[in-house]
């Protein structure tokens, strides 16, 4: 009785994540064991003879039965051990931690931008069907799902860098003239504001603009589409009709009655949007030479650095699970039906 309805739901949702994470660990483990050829021979190197391959096999625990290997694998992970990246000689965990802020800054900024544009756009399109806003919304939605992210990025680059010269060259997070701000959050824009350096803030924002717009154009489509559909549905519902009949102001009907209810399916689609945005992030990072975990993985793929790629897949999956978890918790908190039960 001590726990309210909401806290109980939050707890239940947290518990639900446990089997999901277990599933992710199993798949990642199977991927490490599905390497082409013999992993022991691979890690021993080209010059290894039979005896040293056996030695490596023993060291890596590959002579153990599969379940035992899995336990060792999870044990290593719990200590933050993802192996060593061959290309740089540092541990994969260090490499990923170093690059994660760059990817997060890009992804979160893009999500924020697309939410800020897509939700009002969807609401306006639903309240004014067949107006120019509706057509614009439909156009953006169709273009957003048909355009490959890497192509949008390159097209923007051509127009805004080559033709107009507004954007800086696609060379990572900062122009060479600037030094990175002191690390607090790892996000250059926020860190430069904390340091009070306006020029630096502007420079990092300029570098971010095109990649963020590229990603946002891609994620805008599903959000706007869902907002429009959900708003159309709630606007046609009985309770909105009743609220209108009761003489409430149209603003009140739109925001308190229609929009708050339409928000719930939109929040649910965000899960799918996260999946898209984390994938598209890899492509955008490659186009703009953005030094995040995506371009790290692409470089590792080229030189067949398996430990690095697997560390990347695992950390992306965990990031995805935590984003989904966060969204579900927010959903529980904003769901008006839950608070009524209390």
């Amino acid at each position, binding site marked *: 009785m001590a726990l309210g309805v909401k806290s109980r739901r939050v707890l239940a949702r947290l518990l639900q994540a446990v*089997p*999901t994470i277990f*599933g*992710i660990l*199993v*798949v*990642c483990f199977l*991927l*490490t064991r*599905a*390497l*082409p050829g013999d992993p022991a021979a691979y890690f021993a190197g080209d010059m290894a003879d039979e005896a040293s391959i056996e030695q490596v096999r023993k060291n890596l625990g590959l002579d153990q039965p599969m379940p035992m290997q899995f336990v060792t694998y999870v044990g290593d992970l719990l200590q933050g051990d993802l192996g060593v990246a061959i290309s740089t000689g540092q541990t994969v965990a260090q490499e990923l931690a170093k690059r994660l802020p760059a990817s997060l800054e890009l992804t979160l900024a893009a999500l924020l931008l697309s939410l800020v544009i897509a939700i009002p756009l969807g609401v306006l399109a639903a309240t004014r069907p067949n107006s120019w806003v509706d057509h614009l919304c439909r156009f953006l939605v*169709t273009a957003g*799902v*048909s*355009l*490959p*992210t*890497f*192509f949008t990025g*390159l*097209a923007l*680059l*051509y127009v805004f*860098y*080559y033709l107009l010269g507004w954007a800086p*060259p*696609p060379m990572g997070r900062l122009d060479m003239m600037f030094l990175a701000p002191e690390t607090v959050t790892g996000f250059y824009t926020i860190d430069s504001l904390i340091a009070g350096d306006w020029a630096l803030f502007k420079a990092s924002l300029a570098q971010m603009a095109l990649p963020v717009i590229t990603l946002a154009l891609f994620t805008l489509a599903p959000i706007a*589409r869902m907002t*429009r*559909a959900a708003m*159309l549905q709630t606007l046609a519902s009985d309770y909105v009709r009743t609220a209108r009949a009761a003489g409430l102001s149209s603003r009140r009907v739109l925001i308190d009655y229609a929009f708050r209810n339409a928000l719930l399916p939109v929040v649910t689609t965000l899960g799918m949007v*996260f*999946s*898209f945005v*984390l*994938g*598209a992030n*890899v*492509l955008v990072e*490659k*186009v703009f030479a953005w030094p995040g975990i995506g371009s790290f*993985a*692409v470089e590792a*793929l*080229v030189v*067949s650095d*398996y430990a690095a*790629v*697997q560390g*990347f*897949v695992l950390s*992306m*999956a965990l990031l*995805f*699970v935590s984003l989904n978890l966060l969204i579900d918790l927010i959903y529980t908190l904003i769901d008006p039906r839950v608070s009524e039960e209390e």
Partner: protein
Amino acid sequence: MASSLATPEASTAAPAREGYWQHLRYIMAENPLTGISFAMFIGLIIMALFGPYLVPFDPVATGAGPALMPPSPAHWFGTDHLGRDVFSRVVVATRLDLMISVSAVALSFVFGSVIGSLSGYFGGWTDRIAGRLMDTIMAFPLFVLAMGIVAAAGNSVENIVYATAIINLPFYARMARAEVSIRRNAGFVQAARLSGNSELRVLFGHIFPNTLPPIMVQISLNMGWAILNAAGLSFIGLGVQPPTPEWGIMVAEGANFIISGEWWLVVFPGMALMLAVFTFNLIGDGLRDLVDPQRRT
């Protein structure tokens, strides 16, 4: 018995069919884009089938013209850094791009709908295990999982197909499961069961064909996504290897020249990719209007 059941059905089937064609005409007239998309679809098929015989230059031959020439009457889409004709490469690439996505979608359709049908029909443990399996796939950002699979299984075109098929599997499984489980105890199913059909025969002979229309819509909408996904994988250097013409890899090669202003290397393969995806999305929307008028947006 069988004939007396069949007669009323046959008599209602004829007007229903006529209504179907009327509906098709209505949808074509209502939304001209659907008609255009069918025309573009036929264009894509022709390019895929006959592309290599229609193009003016050998798509892999270097020195078909001077290197990095902008579009001209001789080379409609210009030439790349090795002097290859971009137009020929874009046209010839259609076959490979469509092959990858069609085989991936076909694989995930077959396996996904079998898994989904079984779990929707039998429920219980079959359903729980299949559901867990699909949830585990969906727990990954899908493009990232595809990267991981190709990296682990080896960098080849077949593995691109398998990876794309695996990440699409849950969509088909979920859809087939939902469509089968609502029909599990329908009247016609009980009749089929009573006439002594085996469980599997009831499932795949009687229920499954009825789930096909919504799944067809899904296939069409999914094709575009599969094309984007495969092109994305080859853009980051997985699967298709140069000099094979493929849209994703052509954009990747052209990306190095975009900051010096050679736009045609990126724009034409990118546009081809966009048009293909656009076509399948529009056809999917058109099919949905045809199959399920209530869900029109």
